[in-house]
């Protein structure tokens, strides 16, 4: 990981044999949310029919093209 000001650039390895869906390029972006609460955010998203995944302290979704969005607290 590299720090870019207050943000982070993360590199993730993908094997050459990986499926096209695991292509090079963007894996995900993380967006810091004001007053983030994983349970509340998860509920809001589920109510909208958006599939979510959770990693402790974050909520993960995919946009309509499968680009990953990670939601979490600032810092």
């Amino acid at each position, binding site marked *: 990981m590299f720090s870019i000001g207050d943000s982070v650039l993360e590199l993730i390895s993908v094997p050459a044999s990986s499926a096209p869906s695991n292509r090079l390029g963007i894996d995900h972006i993380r*967006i810091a949310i004001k007053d983030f609460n994983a349970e509340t955010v998860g509920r809001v998203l589920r109510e909208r029919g958006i599939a979510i995944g959770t990693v402790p302290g974050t909520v993960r979704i995919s946009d309509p093209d499968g680009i990953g969005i990670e939601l979490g607290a600032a810092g």
Partner: protein
Amino acid sequence: MDLTCATGSISRRQTLLLLGALAAARTAGAAEPGIMQPLSLDHVNIRVSDVARSAAFYMGLFDTPVLRNPTLSAQPGSPPGDGFFLRFGDGYLAISQALSPDVPGLDHYSLGLRDYDKAKLAAKLLENGIAVPPRSSGDLWLSDLDGSLMQLRPPGGWARQTATPYAGPARVGPALSPLSMSRIALRCADLARAGDYYKPVVRDRNRVRGFQPVTGVLDRGFRP
């Protein structure tokens, strides 16, 4: 002069020695200046299969200002098309159309640099063996080893946006208030090589976390 602490007092000479040692330690621990000094993740430009659909998705989630440019060229030379911009703190997400045979994904990401000077930076990059393809733009564009395109520019890109505020139908129920775009994660074919590429490029005094190789192929990758 003496400094008193819980264990007693130390002399002026001891104080000077202590201060010298602290300064040396600080110098030894400081990161060397990198080729450039990134201050911010200015923006990320994604290409999507349906701009209207993706814009509706993001606008429906995030309570944040939105701009629109119906003739956006994501990068110099790109054909113009519909584009949206969502503000995330000091940065923003740009959404533009994936053009056949392109697939959805990253068009480019942009770093805001301290003391940005295009000519000086291009020369410095070249000195370090990094070629800068010529482009008709005030910004510099670099492609990393895996083809991820990086735009280099002064910070504050949102304030320089000339796109107009989105004037479409009222947005229904955006629920999340974004503070910032705090991370971009990129997939690369060879983590060690990619790390070696980025180390000198983005190293600066802000680089406090250092480069941490991620093992376990894609087990850190995104799984919603």
